[in-house]
């Protein structure tokens, strides 16, 4: 640094020290990023949804407005509605399973015992695997003469040849199973963290007062865990509703349309069928559907977190 630059730099540093400057420092780049990267995107999405443009029709900026035609088409498209319903249904099966399994495992691993660390390490493994690898790995396991069916045969005592990837319901189970297998690791982690962070005093107090373990769990621990449960629900639902990799890699969204999630269908409408405006309209509908669900969950989370803060402050 040159001597001449020193006073200027000092002034700058002092300016940055001020609270009202300092506290905004990280906000500027973050908000800037959102404003420049995501906002134009969103506006473009809305704009495209108001056209009836497809890639085969010249340039999009020349396309005429057609009002809400794309939305009307989207809402009349039963395949889209089915894909939407299917996606929510998959999430509705997968997420509770993940929560229950994760919670159960976390409860079992709660107090220290021999081998706990090994179990924990093992349970966290699936989270660290690329979903594309999971998709591929399962497609290898689930072929009708594959190791998974052989395992089942072992337990069933007869030859099992379920067509996991080429029959309707089994394929759906396979896709859900992939999600559960991989992401129970995350719920396990969240719940383990949650259980470890439970305050000890109220529990000890309850025990002194002669409450049973079940009562303590039901009346003290579980309420305290509510925000943790809420965040687990939010995180997993958000991700499960995006499901794309597993059907793409396991079943090509088939057989029939058995595993066509809304993400896969939108991919097809936009890029394979070239109906960009329709895809944009469907995207917005999807966004609203997801938002309604998630925002309710976030509201619950907020309430719980606020309650926690207030109680903590008392």
């Amino acid at each position, binding site marked *: 640094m040159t001597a001449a630059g020193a006073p200027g730099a000092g002034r700058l*540093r002092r300016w940055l020290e001020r609270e009202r400057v*300092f506290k905004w*420092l*990280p*906000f500027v780049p*973050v908000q800037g*990023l*959102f404003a420049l990267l*995501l906002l134009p*995107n*969103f506006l*473009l*999405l809305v704009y*495209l949804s108001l056209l009836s443009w497809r890639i085969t029709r010249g340039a999009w900026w020349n396309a005429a407005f057609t009002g809400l035609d794309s939305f009307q088409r989207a809402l009349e498209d039963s395949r889209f509605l089915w894909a939407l319903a299917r996606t929510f249904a998959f999430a509705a099966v997968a997420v509770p399973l993940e929560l229950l399994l994760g919670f*159960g*495992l976390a409860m079992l691993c709660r107090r220290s*015992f021999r*081998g706990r660390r090994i179990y*924990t*390490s*093992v*349970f*966290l*493994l699936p989270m*660290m*695997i*690329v*979903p*594309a*690898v999971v998709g*591929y*790995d*399962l*497609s*290898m*396991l689930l072929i009708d003469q*594959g*190791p998974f069916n052989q*395992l089942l045969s072992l337990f069933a005592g007869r030859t099992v040849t379920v067509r996991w990837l080429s029959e309707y319901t089994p394929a759906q189970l396979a896709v859900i199973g992939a999600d559960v*297998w991989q992401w129970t690791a995350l719920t396990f*982690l969240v719940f383990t963290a949650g259980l*470890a*962070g439970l305050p000890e005093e109220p529990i000890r107090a309850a025990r002194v007062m002669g409450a049973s373990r079940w009562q303590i769990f039901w009346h003290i621990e579980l309420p305290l865990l509510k*925000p*943790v449960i809420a*965040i687990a629900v939010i995180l997993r639902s*958000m991700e499960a509703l*995006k499901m794309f*990799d597993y059907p*793409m*890699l396991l079943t090509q969204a088939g057989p029939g349309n058995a595993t066509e999630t*809304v993400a896969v269908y939108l991919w097809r409408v936009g890029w394979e069928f070239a109906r960009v405006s329709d895809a*944009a309209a469907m*995207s917005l509908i999807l*966004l609203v559907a*997801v938002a309604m669900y998630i925002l309710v969950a*976030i509201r619950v989370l*907020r309430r*719980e977190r606020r309650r*926690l803060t207030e109680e903590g402050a008392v």
Partner: protein
Amino acid sequence: MRQRGFPLFPLVRHTLLLAWAAVTLFPIYWMVMTSFKQAAEWVTWPPRWFPHEPTLVNYVKVLTPGTSTFELGRQTLKILKPIGDSLIVSGIGSLIAVLLGSALAYSWARFGTGGRSYPYNILSIRMVPPIVIAVPFVVYFVTLRLLDTYTGLILVYLATSLPYVIWMMLAFVEEVPVELERAARVMGASRWKVLRSVVLPLTASGLVVTFLFVFILNWSELLLAMTLTNTEVSTIPIQLNKFQSANEGRDYGPQAAIGTIATLPVVVLGFLIQKHLLRGFSFGLLRK
């Protein structure tokens, strides 16, 4: 009945835990084993639980340029460039996200910057399914000349991982005693000094955990990467997808080798920081 000291409970517990451990390990085990198998052993009835003639040929095929891997001699599944690209894109993207996000979390926790709802608002960014923004992103990125560039993908990953970073870091930042910071300030330390010598050491493990978690997410991301890259950039999930789309790939050995290679670094990282992992996932939702 679940009573502590009841002799059956440890037994039940181990049975249940072992069962899930088996479920967890089985696919991984199979993949690793397959990566050491000769082509003839990939699909057999009954399946082979061990490679009878272990081989490294799958790894050699995947890692040497110019050889073909598919049994019919047609595919050239390669991994080195995608690994490099993935490391660059998710590494840099996650790093910047952790820097910005944790600074933001700190600012919000200390000064309430952005208002009370800020973290919740930002969480809703993560709610947007990638497919929703994929199509306009192409149009937009073309005009910015960011399509098929490292910068473009890094920016996208940065934006999509910020919500997670902020939420995870809130927990760590809130654990830093304010009194300590105040004391340091009183003694004349600048805000930067406080950050460097009080906050940073106390949240270091959090930074590592958070970095690892968003790194995993970015390392795995398929849809946006597939949409926003062509010839120049190619991440691991894209490469895997090219050769594994449901009804293409039965090139199990090399694919298993790639899967193993793609999994290994993350798993090793995961083990190294496992001790700290738990704290990152309380999301600031509990008070000690």
